[in-house]
């Protein structure tokens, strides 16, 4: 069975290669090829999953070693895969949701002349993402890590003719690169400490390493995770990334790629377990991002950006959970999977709305769409209920577990984290209700666009609605399937380890509190957006609202410090290079030239003058000869 692992990556990779090199001949069938190969990957994943279920819990990990990638003295990097329960979870999520989004894209991208290439990029993404989660060493993981970054770059900037899209793509890649720097430094530290960077030996040897080293590795891994998962302080790219086509936002910037940071931390559990300081930082980053994203999500009028804020916030939950240690790892992954379903569903719903609304993204110009798009409304609604943690739906289970675990951290820390997660839950309910109300309820507020086209809201084609329906199923039931009877805990425990957390108050109390804050959030939103008509032009709003609309001024900070500062730095360096470094050389040349000019005057053209110097030279030579003989 283990020989199939390579095929998981290989199938979509083949698709990418064929579609990107194939040329125009494949324009007609390209999307089918892409979808088919993604589905093939999913099918192989299912087969491996079935095989894995048949084995005992401790014996489920599969390994496949293809060949030595970089064989250098003392440095062996293999192309080798490891498929254990954690990877399997991701494989199914990536290839499953990936396939659905491929199907969705067939309809969504129907009128785009570059659809073939879009599918090529999607396949490339799936391949890279699978490589990321299947790698058995950090370097190969890094390969996948950068590979998804590339795919993300290509897909965000898919509509390159829009300068905003091109800028967003570049920004995403650059911010990610800062994170990648962390990952590569982490690998370097591992290599110098352990002499290897394969998961098995490194994680097994963490007990012997000093805590300082492990903290350094942990913090560097966290930096990587922050970049990829859009956590504070590297979160700024995610909102802009919504410039990409909506299926991309659903697949990459909601369900899969942005959760890679969580995977990285959970995969490196042993390192973090042995480095409490690093864990603390992880928790703080998660908590801050969780609030940050939620607040931003409340203020955005662009439906996709609102959802992007939500994604950031939900990943904050996951990172926070991952930072809690063994009591949280499993729930981080569980929330990741359920979030994958409902957030992908929400994005696809948003895409469906845009599809029917002439690509309008401003929610203030929606309103009352439930009558026009019933399927979208229902699936979006189910996703909405799942994300706010409506009891019984998948988000309820996973989020509740995280909140419990946060309280179970113990001490003051536990109380603070618990409160933050509860507050986050309330805000989540608030902004999601806002999105729901502004989009599907109330009066219709749409207007003709600049070219005078009045939007005619209509339901999307089958190829788009079916994936939405399937994802809605996932949003509703996944939590129950995983959560009831701790099935997910038992599934992942052999890989991540698990310790049951004991919150200082009873689990039931936590659950009730969760539900209560959710109701409060919904209620507030209803008061603000359900009872009153939504103004088409955004009101000025409070200081906080205005700041949140600008991503809490984080972009402004980046712009002022890094972009402007960087521009000044490079300009001044260019000047230095031209005037100083080159100037020294040119100055030397000029002074030599000047000296020569003066010396040239000795060449007056008079033969007798030359004869004097010749004669004098001879005299000097004779003197030198005599002196040398005398010495």
């Amino acid at each position, binding site marked *: 069975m283990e020989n199939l692992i390579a095929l998981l990556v290989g199938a979509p990779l083949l698709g990418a290669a064929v579609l990107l090199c194939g040329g125009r001949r494949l324009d007609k069938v390209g999307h089918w090829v892409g979808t088919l190969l993604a589905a093939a990957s999913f099918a192989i994943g299912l087969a491996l999953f079935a095989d894995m279920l048949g084995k005992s819990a401790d014996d489920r990990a599969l390994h496949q070693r293809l060949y030595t990638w970089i064989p250098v003295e003392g440095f062996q990097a293999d192309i080798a895969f490891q498929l254990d329960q954690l990877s399997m979870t991701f494989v199914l999520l990536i290839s499953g949701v990936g396939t659905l989004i491929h199907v969705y894209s067939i309809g969504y991208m129907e009128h785009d002349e570059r659809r073939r290439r879009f599918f090529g990029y999607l396949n490339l993404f799936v391949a890279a993402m699978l490589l990321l989660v299947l790698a058995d060493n950090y370097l190969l993981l890094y390969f996948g890590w950068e590979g998804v970054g590339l795919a993300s770059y290509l897909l965000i900037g898919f509509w390159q003719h829009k300068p905003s899209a091109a800028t967003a793509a570049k920004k995403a890649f650059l911010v990610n690169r800062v994170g990648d720097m962390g990952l590569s430094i982490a690998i370097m530290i591992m290599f110098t400490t352990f002499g290897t960077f394969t998961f098995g030996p490194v994680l097994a040897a963490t007990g012997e390493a000093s805590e300082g080293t492990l903290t350094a590795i942990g913090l560097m891994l966290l930096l990587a995770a922050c970049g990829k998962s859009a956590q504070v302080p590297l979160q700024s790219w995610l909102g802009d990334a919504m410039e990409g086509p909506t299926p991309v936002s659903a697949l990459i910037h909601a369900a899969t790629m942005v959760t890679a940071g969580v995977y990285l931390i959970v995969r490196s559990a042993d390192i973090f377990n042995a480095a409490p300081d690093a864990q603390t930082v992880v928790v703080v980053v998660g908590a801050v991002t969780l609030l940050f994203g939620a607040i931003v999500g409340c203020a955005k009028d662009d439906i996709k950006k609102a959802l992007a804020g939500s994604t950031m916030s939900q990943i904050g939950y996951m990172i926070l959970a991952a930072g809690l240690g063994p009591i949280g790892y499993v729930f981080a992954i569980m929330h990741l999977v359920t979030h994958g379903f409902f957030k992908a569903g929400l994005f696809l719903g948003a895409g469906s709305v845009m599809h029917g609304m002439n690509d309008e993204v401003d929610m203030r110009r929606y309103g009352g769409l439930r009558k026009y798009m019933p399927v979208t409304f229902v699936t979006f609604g189910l996703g909405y209920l799942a994300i706010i943690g409506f009891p019984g739906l998948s988000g309820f289970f996973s989020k509740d577990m995280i909140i419990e675990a946060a309280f179970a951290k113990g001490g003051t820390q536990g109380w603070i984290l618990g409160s933050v997660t509860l507050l986050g839950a309330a805000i989540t309910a608030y902004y999601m209700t806002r999105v729901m109300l502004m989009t599907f309820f109330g009066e219709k507020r749409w207007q003709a666009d600049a070219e005078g086209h009045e939007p005619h809201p209509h339901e999307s084609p089958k190829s788009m609605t079916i994936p939405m329906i399937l994802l809605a199923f996932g949003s509703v039931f996944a939590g129950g399937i995983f959560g009831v009877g701790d099935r997910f805990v038992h599934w992942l425990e052999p890989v991540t380890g698990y310790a049951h957390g004991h919150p200082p108050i009873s689990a039931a109390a936590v659950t009730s509190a969760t539900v209560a804050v959710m109701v409060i959030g919904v209620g507030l939103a209803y008061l603000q957006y359900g009872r009153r008509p939504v103004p088409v032009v955004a009101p000025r709003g409070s200081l906080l609202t205005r700041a949140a609309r600008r991503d809490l001024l984080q972009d402004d900070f980046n712009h002022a410090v890094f972009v402007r500062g960087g521009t000044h730095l490079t300009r001044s360096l260019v000047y230095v290079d031209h005037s100083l470094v080159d100037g020294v050389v040119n100055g030397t040349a000029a002074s030599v030239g000047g000296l020569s000019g003066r010396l040239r005057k000795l060449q007056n053209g*008079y033969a007798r*003058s030359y004869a*004097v110097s010749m*004669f*004098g030279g001879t005299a000097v030579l*004779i*003197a030198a000869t*005599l002196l040398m003989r*005398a010495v």
Partner: protein
Amino acid sequence: MSAELAAYATSGGEAFQFWVLGTVAVAGALGTILMRRAVHSALCLAGTMIILAVFYLANGAYFLGIVQIVVYTGAIMMLFLFVVMLVGVTAADSLKETLKGQRWWAAACGLGFGILLAGGIGNASLTEFVGLGAANSAHGGNVEGLAALIFTKYVFAFEMTGALLITAAVGAMVLTHRERTERARTQRELAEQRVREGKHVPPLPAPGVYARHNAVDIPGLLPDGTPSELTVMQTLRKRGQVRDVSAEALADLKALEQRSEERLGRDRDEEEATR
């Protein structure tokens, strides 16, 4: 001057000869560089060379001594004189230096060089003194000895110098030869050209031969009494050997005028007196 003498001894006679002739040689050398006229320089140089020839003989280099006189003094110096005559008789060289500091540098370098050279000679351990007796008599004489060397050890160099001489001769011919690039113009054409240019349409004026002197170096005088350069041949003009008689002529003219003035003045006075 026997072979013995040349070989070993520095007899009193030779010493006397050295000091006397040496002084003259140095004087000749100095004359060469200090005389204003090239001809004088050449003559001084010839004198020095003859003295050097004597010294060669004194040193037992009989063949060289003769060659020095015959070839150097006789042929080469005559060549010099020819060329001096051709070009250089343009009167005296001005000995005024035009290059800044040239004299000083030359003096300093010359002095330094001389001192160094003398120092070098003094430094060298030249106490041994073999003499040429054996070498000269080995082949039966100086000339035979030289011949034996030239045609054996130095035969290659000898051949080379032969080639060099031929090349030099050809080179000199090439350098001095003037290729006529156009047909020589006829007298008619020359006359036409003169007319076209409008200068000296008639033949050049004759020198003042018939006026008062019978020599070609005296220019004819223009009506106002100034001498006309044109009337004297070019070579004499170049050499500066034009005998300027204008002052004399002008003085004569003045005197004449004076006289006529006086006479006329007297007449006028008389006239006034009569009136």
